[in-house]
């Protein structure tokens, strides 16, 4: 057989193996995390682990309810602020703003995406935390975490929502305007509903980013293990807890950290599958039309 056919055939299998790698990594992560988490889940019990209110590794108490609540609260807070801001900004970029404003705002959003999370954390710590302390409490708090996270997930919402608003066919707008709608009515009643699957996907992805964020929150949220009762109290979400304790944890404590990772992993898979489903549905809807 000619050499080039040999190369052709062997390269095909090499390429196939490379493609399998990404799937293999996912499986490896899932298997490894589960395996390491198993001792903790068996010893502590799933319910005691999920619903326990005390996290004291030194005395063998491993309850992550305060962490789960911390993650839920800080994520919800950030989403409440970031969604109106982000979707508004996406409409501005896609429909309203003149070219000059777009040329200024779009690179700004792009830079916001790229800024390392530790820089967000640093600015939060030196700028936001003292401001929160003025209002009351220790400053390192849920509120500071929410503000920092809002800034971090904003660009995700803006860029994906903008793309999906842009993807709405021109004829929709023309149709609405021809029926006598104002610009705003055509945007609100026609363009936004048509783009809703993309916008929903952007929000779900932003939730995923907020749930997984660790380092910026370590710096501003206080990391106290009690359940926060007001926005001015410190909190301790799931992801930052893993980051803070991994390097020195041993034995059951270490296994418990992996169990937290399993909780995060399950959360993220649910969130991402939702996002993928929403986007597929959006894509199918567009094909049908």
């Amino acid at each position, binding site marked *: 057989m000619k050499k080039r056919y040999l190369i052709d055939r062997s390269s095909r299998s090499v390429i196939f193996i490379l493609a399998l790698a990404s*799937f293999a990594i996912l499986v490896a992560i899932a298997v490894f*995390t589960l395996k390491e988490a198993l001792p903790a889940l068996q010893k502590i019990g799933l319910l005691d682990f999920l619903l326990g209110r005390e996290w004291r590794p030194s005395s063998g108490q491993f309850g992550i309810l305060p962490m789960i609540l911390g993650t839920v609260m800080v994520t919800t807070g950030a989403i409440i602020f970031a969604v109106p801001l982000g979707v*508004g900004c996406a409409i501005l970029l896609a429909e309203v703003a003149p070219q000059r404003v777009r040329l200024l705002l779009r690179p*700004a959003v792009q*830079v916001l995406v790229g800024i390392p999370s530790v820089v967000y954390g640093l600015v939060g710590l030196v700028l936001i935390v003292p401001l929160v302390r003025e209002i009351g409490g220790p400053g390192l708090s849920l509120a500071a975490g929410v503000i920092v996270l809002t800034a971090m997930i904003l660009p995700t919402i803006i860029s994906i929502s903008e793309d999906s608003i842009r993807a709405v066919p021109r004829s929709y707008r023309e149709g609405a305007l021809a029926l006598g709608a104002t610009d705003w009515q055509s945007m609100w009643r026609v363009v936004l509903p048509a783009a809703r699957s993309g916008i929903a996907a952007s929000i779900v992805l932003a939730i995923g980013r907020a749930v997984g964020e660790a380092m910026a929150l370590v710096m501003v949220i206080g990391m106290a293990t009690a359940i926060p009762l007001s926005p001015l109290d410190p909190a301790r979400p799931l992801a930052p807890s893993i980051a803070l304790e991994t390097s020195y944890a041993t034995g059951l404590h270490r296994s418990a950290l992996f169990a937290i990772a399993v909780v995060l992993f399950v959360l993220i898979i649910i969130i991402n599958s939702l996002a993928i489903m929403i986007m597929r549905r959006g894509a199918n809807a567009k094909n049908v039309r």
Partner: protein
Amino acid sequence: MPRMSANSTQKLALACIWGTGVVTFLILLVIIGYVLVQGVSDISWSFLTTAPRGGLSGEGGISTVIVCTLYLLGLTMAIVVPLGVGAAIYLSEYAPDNRLTHLIRYGTEVLAGVPSIVFGLFGFALFVTALHLRFSILSGALTLACLLLPTLIRASEEALRAVPRSHREAALALGATKWQTVWRVLLPAALPGIATGVILCIGRGVGETACLFVTMGGTSALPTSLFSGGRTLSMHLLHLVLDTNAFEKALATGVVLIITIVAINAMTNWLSQRFRARMTGGA
């Protein structure tokens, strides 16, 4: 309550929308402005070229940290580029429309959303402890490569798919094998697009902390081999904030990070514009 007329509703709504744009821009201005204004005065040639001396006041500069960041990124790219581009070639050129392909695609998409710290914990368990690579640059690079893989696959696959069909047909018609078509025609044509993806990954790698924090150890000494520990710029900033009170040094490190990111963004924009022009301009 009287209904608002359509015109005043529109005015109000547009005002709100402009408001959101202004707020977003202000957020960026505050973050970048604050770090630049506060941090730039501490940047000097000696800050960039002396090693950090450690201690509570965070004395010294960031020279070893810069070296370590470059070392880590180089190694990560050497691992992730062949893997990612190979997988992208498979998905765009070879993959049959079957269950396994769907599984690979789904795996990649889910992998893209897994939090950095979960990658970190995985890297810690597999590379640092199970494979005995210790807290090292190699462990960090392997972990970071896993994290960046889905991003690179997606970018490269898009670049390959953007190459017009006629290129493939022309190569095959000349008697090239599939691999020759891929290697001599598609890859060169998609190169700027793939390069954009690689630079994007470098940008993410520069900003990444969580997954490296638990796999690289964090010593500030100059790395001597793949197995020595290390500290990247982002990790250094985190260390300064958490373990010292040297906020001015942290801000100066932040300036270096922001400038790097802006430069990387400018480079990707320039490359992707060129790529688009090449693919649509018929050149």
